[in-house]
Structures are given as structure tokens and as C-alpha cells.
């Protein structure tokens, strides 16, 4: 156990995942108090910097999901103020949170990820992307999933079964971000592997047991419900052949390294139902920490209790 610190828990903020972040933050605060730390809770709003100046914490625990807490904004701010913080740095955050960038990097590195392309709102307005919709469809083939590049909320995820639905899906996704990722839909099993830095900075990060998300009611192509709380059951460790588990964990670790994540991250994967192939969908540098979130579930299955998990994430602030 390390020495007690004055820890600012940053939570809330203005993202679509605000309420979940408030719950994650509250739970982290309790764990930190039990661990003997002095806790300052900060709802990241207009007075974030003022509060940091006033309280002068030793370290900031970033418990924010989505938005400024996950895209590198808060991290950059903490660096300039001079407060050490948990999790990935600005570059790692940007590479992970921008799903388009992450997928281009994955593809270049030879890590499998579903075929995709990215569209910016400005390109539709200025470069005549409309004429490329046919090319996109031919290249990726229907059905397609359209997601805002940097959003985690279920609301932004659109599904296009036909050519007619594609423009609406793109405009819908672009309501949540200025950039959208259009991805080939992979039907299969939905897996998540959380990666945690080792206790000693010399050791390699470790992949936690695989979690499988199983939609409770199998509705054909009801992609959105997968992201809807309460519509899914989670199994950990996922019931997979040992070699599949091993490969999923290796892919998660490779993704974590490639994107430059630090401290902790959760990598979402798909196991193709037809080909049995694994592919990486995205990496999340601000994984949830509520009672029902995937990271604590996986950590628990690995024998790491919540308090220990929180302490380990906290220490990642000092191993950058």
C-alpha cells in the first residue's frame, strides 16, 4: 500500500455519459476513502480549473466517460496545471477516442478491424461526399453501422440495412460528432477485454479475463439495443475456446500498446459468427467503474477486488 494522498476525483462533465460517470466517481471516492486517501470530488464543469487551483491535489483520478474527460482535453489541462492523473495521456486518449483514427492505426498495424471508412460533416458540405455513397456501399457492403467517431452513447449508433437508410444514418450519427465512422456490420459475439498496467512499471500490462455481452432478446439487426442498459447480460470469463480467449487478449494488448494507452483501458472486439475471426472495434480509455461495469467485473474475475483496482489505477498516475 502506498502512502495516502490527496486525490481529486474528476467525474460528471457535460458528456452524454454524465450520469454513469457520476456513479463511477462516487464509487471510486468510496474506495479511495477506504484506502485512506483524502478525497475531493469535482464535477468537471466551469470551475474545474479553479477547484484544482484551490485544492491543489497530489493526484487526479479521472472517472469521466466520453467527451472532454476521454478525448484528451482534461488530460492536457491537468498537465498544464501540473497535477498527475490516472489513465492515458492526451495522445493516447485522442488516438483511442477518435474511432476513425484508431481504426486507421489498427489497419496499418495489421490488427484486424471491420472494414470501414470515415466521413466528416465538412466533407459532405464541401467535397461532394454524396456521390461516394455508392462506392462506400460497394466497398463495405450492407448492412452498415454508422457511429459518431468519438461518442459512446447508444443514441448515436445507427444501422443502415438499405441504401435508402444510409444518408439518414450518417446525418443522425453526425448529430453527435463532426465525424462519423461507417463500418461493415459484423454479426457475431460481442467481447470486451480490459487491460491494466502491471504493478511494477517494468512489467508488461496484463489483459483481464474476457467479458461477453449477450443481448437478452435476440432481435435481428437490433444493433442499438446492444448498447442499451438492461438489454444485455454479461458473462465473465466468456465461454470461449482457450485459443480464442488467448487471441482476444493478445489483440487487446496489441491495441493498448499501439494506441499508447496508459493505466487502464477496455478494448471491444467482435467474434465473427460465420468465420470465427476476431476483430477489434474500439478502445475505451475511460471505462466505467460502476457496480455493473465491465472493467470491475473482469477485474473481479481475475481476483483483483475493486479497492485494489482503484489503487492500481491511481498508481498509474505516477508511472507515466
Amino acid at each position, binding site marked *: 500500500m502506498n502512502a495516502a494522498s490527496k486525490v481529486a476525483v474528476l467525474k460528471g462533465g*457535460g*458528456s*452524454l*455519459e*454524465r*450520469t*454513469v*460517470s457520476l*456513479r*463511477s466517481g*462516487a*464509487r471510486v471516492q*468510496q474506495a479511495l476513502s*477506504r484506502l485512506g486517501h483524502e478525497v475531493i470530488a469535482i464535477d468537471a464543469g466551469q470551475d474545474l480549473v479553479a477547484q484544482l487551483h484551490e485544492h491543489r491535489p497530489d493526484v487526479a483520478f479521472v472517472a469521466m*466517460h*466520453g467527451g472532454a474527460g*476521454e478525448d484528451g482535453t482534461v488530460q492536457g489541462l491537468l498537465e498544464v496545471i501540473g497535477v498527475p492523473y490516472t489513465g492515458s495521456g492526451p495522445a493516447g486518449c485522442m488516438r483511442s477516442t477518435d474511432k476513425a483514427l484508431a481504426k486507421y492505426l489498427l489497419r496499418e498495424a495489421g490488427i484486424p478491424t471491420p472494414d470501414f471508412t470515415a466521413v466528416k*460533416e465538412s466533407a*459532405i*458540405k464541401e467535397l461532394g461526399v*454524396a456521390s461516394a455513397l455508392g462506392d462506400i456501399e460497394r466497398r463495405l457492403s450492407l448492412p452498415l453501422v454508422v457511429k459518431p467517431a468519438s461518442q*459512446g*452513447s*447508444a*443514441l*448515436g449508433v445507427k444501422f443502415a440495412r438499405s441504401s435508402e437508410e444510409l*444518408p*439518414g444514418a*450518417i*446525418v*443522425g450519427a*453526425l*448529430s*453527435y460528432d463532426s465525424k462519423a465512422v461507417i463500418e461493415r456490420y459484423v454479426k457475431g459475439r460481442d467481447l*470486451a477485454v480490459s487491460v491494466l498496467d502491471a504493478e511494477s512499471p517494468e512489467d508488461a500490462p496484463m489483459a483481464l479475463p474476457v467479458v461477453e*455481452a449477450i443481448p*437478452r432478446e435476440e432481435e435481428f439487426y437490433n444493433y442499438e439495443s446492444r*448498447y*442499451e*442498459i*438492461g*438489454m*444485455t*447480460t454479461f458473462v*465473465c470469463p466468456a465461454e470461449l475456446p482457450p485459443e480464442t480467449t488467448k487471441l482476444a487478449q493478445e489483440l487487446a494488448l496489441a491495441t493498448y500498446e499501439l494506441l499508447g494507452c496508459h493505466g487502464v483501458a477496455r478494448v471491444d472486439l467482435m467474434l465473427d459468427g460465420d468465420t470465427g475471426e476476431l476483430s477489434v472495434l474500439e478502445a*475505451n480509455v*475511460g*471505462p*466505467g467503474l*460502476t*457496480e*455493473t*461495469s*465491465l472493467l470491475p*467485473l473482469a477485474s*473481479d*474475475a481475475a481476483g483483483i*477486488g*475493486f*479497492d485494489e483496482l482503484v489503487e492500481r489505477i491511481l498508481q498509474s498516475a505516477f508511472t507515466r
Partner: protein
Amino acid sequence: MERSSSAGGDGRGARPTAHELARYEALFAARTRGMKSSAMREMMALTERPEVISLAGGLPDTSTFAPELYARLMAEVAAESTARALQYGPTEGMAATVGCIVEVMAAEGTPVDPADVIVTTGGQQVIDLVCKTLIDPGDVIVAEAPTYPGAVPTFSAYQADVEQIEIDADGMPIDELEAALDRLQSEGRKPKFIYTIPNFQNPGGVTMSLARRRRLVEVARERELLILEDNPYGLLRYEGEPLPTLYSLDAAAVGRGGASDLVIYLGTFSKILSPGLRLGWAVAPRPVLEKLNLGKQGSDLCSSPITQMFVAAYFAEPGTGSSESAWIEYVERLRKLYLRRRDVMLESLEEHFGGRASWTRPEGGLFIWATLEGNVDTTDLLARAKGVAFVPGRAAYVDGGRGSSSMRLNFAGVPDEDIREGIRRIGSIMGSDTGLLGTLTGSPSAPSRQPDTGTEELAPMADIVALPRRDAQDPARPARRRRDR
């Protein structure tokens, strides 16, 4: 981003293991599956920031209530009735409060017997208690489409099957109701009650015509169904003649001591006085009333005597001008205020939505329902909107699929400037959205607003679905239907 399983709640220090989570799952009642924390709710939570102009809430403007009066009445209750105010009260409500309710009902043109009244914790509790009394899992409730978004989670919690009838300018079309009832019967499903908001419907803003009211009561009688008449805004009428309540129509027709035996009437002090009091009521046929009473005992024993006594004290307060009672004068003030705000919103809609949307013109209440042209999803629009909030139309449909191009706008809760600015903001994002879609689909972008030729100028007006009684006066003209099916 966060993804999580369905077991919710804030643990206090305990560290649930994977095994424990599975145990919660096993313990949860089947009805909790219908209770989901939706992503839309997350988004609505985001709009509760001070810089956001909210046209989303169902809020009356409580800042209009005189602070001195509130302080004096509360002090009176505190000083004169300490022990009673701090004690439990009767489940059916305190006699003095029931007396106030009888007064409000009389103002609604609906005389009732105090013995037929139960005081509830807000009107919302009536919906809950009626479901608790009447609904087994799978039973059918017939509601309007769109319907009050706050009733949807209650219906879901009781595992009701909700059949929604699309409304038009005159409320629920009774022929379509009958067709739906026939179909349900042929499928061997029997509805238990028809849920309707006849006056200034939430969220539709339309009012059920007198002819339909009469016919609805007849249909319910023929088919031995109950009606839940939700009437929170009846006294907030800004123009036109008040129409009789379903309760009074049935009571007059049947004449059983002046009481209806098929209408459960839901009333509330929330919109004519204060939602913070959490006081509403039901007037119901005796056998139903008894069950509601038993249900309420199980829910909360009684509604707060403190706020009940406040209401009684308030209703005893004499008026200072136009009326004998302060409460009637207050309702008159609210009517003037909300009428002006409604007109401000209608003007703003004409200016910023003209040619790109249709909207209702309510004769009272709090809400306007606007439906956008083309394939614009208002849930996405809300995400795009920074600094303004409204309720996406999908929230008013049980299946969550319909209503996607509509929105509910509250004109009562915010000042004129905010209404103008809020509508302007929505109009400007609508433009960017439809423009983008037009570019992608290769179709010309939405027509610019305020067309300048005489014929086109009429176009936005023709799309207004609730021009008062126009359809009723002109039988040759087919009822104008909503566009959001």
C-alpha cells in the same frame, strides 16, 4: 465510454462480485425488464444545465406565486395545527383538502360527491394506483398516440400491453378506437381501460371534441370498459369554450346520484398551484375507489398532511379583486401569463419553423407538439442542439419507434425571451440537419423559410393541425391527420 449490465443501484462500500451480480439478476422481478434506464434519459439529464434554455419540462412557472403568501400560510399551518400537520393522515385524504378538490371540480363544471374522492401524491400516483388495481401482466391499456411520456414507464412497470390510437385535431378518433377494440376482441384480448387526456393533450396540445367525448363515453359503456380521464390543465384554458369532462357527461347520462360509474377522473394541484406540493386526486366509482384506497395504503399510507393543510389554508384565502377566492385569482393570472407565452411561441414557430414543420395550436395547457418535415430524427436533433432542450417525440410512443420527427415544446415554464431564443436555436439546427441530408440524398435542401408568394404563405398555416373546431364546423372537410405515423 461506458457499458454496463442491468443491475443498478449505488452500493455503499460493498464490493459486489460477479457471483453477486448474477444473484441480483436472478432476484429481479420480471417487470424490471421493462424498466430500463434509457440513453434518452441520459441525454435529457444533460439538458438540466443553467445555460440550456429548457422547453422540455412539464413545468408550470412557480415563481409567479407570492412568496409572502406562501410564507404566511405555511406559518399558519405550522402554528395552528402543529400536531395534526406532523401526524399521519387518513389514506383517502383530509376532509378539508377534499373540500378544496370539490371546489376545483365544480370550477371544471363537474359536481362530485366528496365521498367519491381520494387524495393522492400527485396525479402520477393515480396512474400508478389505477394500473395496480386493474392491470395484470399482458392486459391491454388503450392510450392516445402520442401519449403522456410519464405514463409510459408506469404502464411498462405493470407489464401492460399498450395500444396507441393516433390522435388528430379533435383528439382520439373514436371510429379508430372502435376498430382497435374490435381487433383486440377478435384476438381474444380485452382492454381494461382507456387512458385519455381530453383537454390540451400532453404532448399533442389538442382537445377532444364534444361529439367525440359523448361517443367515447358511449363506447366505454357499450363495451364495459373504464376510462381514465387525465385532466391536469382543464382550468388553464386560454380561449374557446370549456367542454364538459367525460366524468360529468357520463354522470349526466347515467344519473346515478350524479356520479359516473365508468370514468376514473384524475386531477392535480400541480398545474393550478404547485407540483412541489405533490397533491393530486382521483374521483372514481366506489368499488374502484376502495381498491385505489387499499393500493394507496400499500404505497404510502397517506399523502403529506403538511401540504394538504397548506392547500386547505390557501383555498380559504379570500381574493383581493376579481374573485372571492385567492386561488381562482391565481389561476386567472396564470391563464393570462401562459396565453401570452403560447402566443410568443406560436409567433416564434412561424418565424423559425415556417414551411419546415407543422405544429398544434393548443387552446390551453402547457404544450405545443411540432412535427418536422422530412426525415429528421428529433432525438438526434436534441444531441445537435447546444443550449436548448425539448422532449423528442419518441418518448411519447410506447414502441419508441414512432414520433421520431416530432417534439414536445413547453411554452409555460420560461419567460418570453427564452421562448423566442429557444425556438430560434432549434430552427437554426434544423436547418443544418435538413441541409446536410439534402446534400447527401441529392434532393434540394429544405425550402427557405417565409416564402413570399400569396399561395405559399398559406402553406405553413394549412399544416397546423389544431385550428380550433374547424373540422367540426365543416363536415365536408376530412379531419386533418398528423404526419408522424
